[in-house]
């Protein structure tokens, strides 16, 4: 019975470990140059190569164990189990486009207006919070 439990938990842990290794391999694949540069696009005499920033995050955990003890009728029992779980996410954002034309090669940056607007709102939030805190403090302790 103990051998069966150990075997079961070992098999479960091995399967979970295999999946974890697969996740790790996929994560390392995100570091490849082909994930950043898309295939070239030919437009007339111009060649365009889009470039993006890629951020990949993954996490996982595995566990296995065995146990033994008497059941309700007092007979010795043993059991085991194992498993794992995880998750991940990949984010990509266009950074620039490389333009190769008969005139030469140039890099055209990609400007993400939404992200800039969000950063501007956050910065405005800093200023507003500081001003609000300062005016409250002045009212309580200062000359306001």
């Amino acid at each position: 019975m103990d051998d069966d439990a150990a075997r079961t938990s070992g098999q479960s842990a091995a399967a979970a470990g295999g999946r974890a290794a697969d996740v790790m391999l996929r994560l390392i694949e995100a570091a490849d140059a082909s994930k950043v540069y898309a295939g070239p696009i030919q437009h007339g005499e111009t060649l365009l190569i889009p470039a993006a920033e890629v951020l990949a995050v993954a996490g996982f955990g595995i566990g296995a164990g065995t146990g033994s003890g008497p059941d309700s009728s007092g007979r010795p029992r043993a059991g085991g189990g194992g498993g794992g779980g995880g998750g991940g996410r990949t984010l990509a954002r266009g950074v620039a486009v490389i333009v190769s034309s008969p005139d030469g090669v140039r890099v055209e940056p990609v400007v993400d207006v939404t992200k800039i607007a969000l950063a501007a709102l956050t910065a405005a939030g800093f200023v507003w919070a500081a001003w609000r805190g300062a005016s409250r403090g002045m009212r309580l302790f200062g000359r306001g």
Partner: protein
Amino acid sequence: MVTVFHKFGKPWTHSARVLTPRTRAMLLRFPGLGGGLVWNRPSGVIVDENGERVTLETPDVTRRIQWALLAMGAAAAIAIAFNARRRRPRGLAAALRRLPRALRA
């Protein structure tokens, strides 16, 4: 734990010039924990033409503007807080003197 490395992509040939993309990747692995983080971004393109080699950078304009805006906001917030602190009369007596008016407001 943290590994930073450069990688080169497949070279592309276009009108007698060869373009080789280059990336900079950061691999972060958490010791004792499963998983990690990969941050991969373009760092430039190497142009080989007529025996000359030129490297063109791929600047991340959005990221630079974001950091500039956040830095300006943080600097302005610190300046406002510092200015308010400088103008504030110190001491418990001054605070107690202002308390009724502050509570009314």
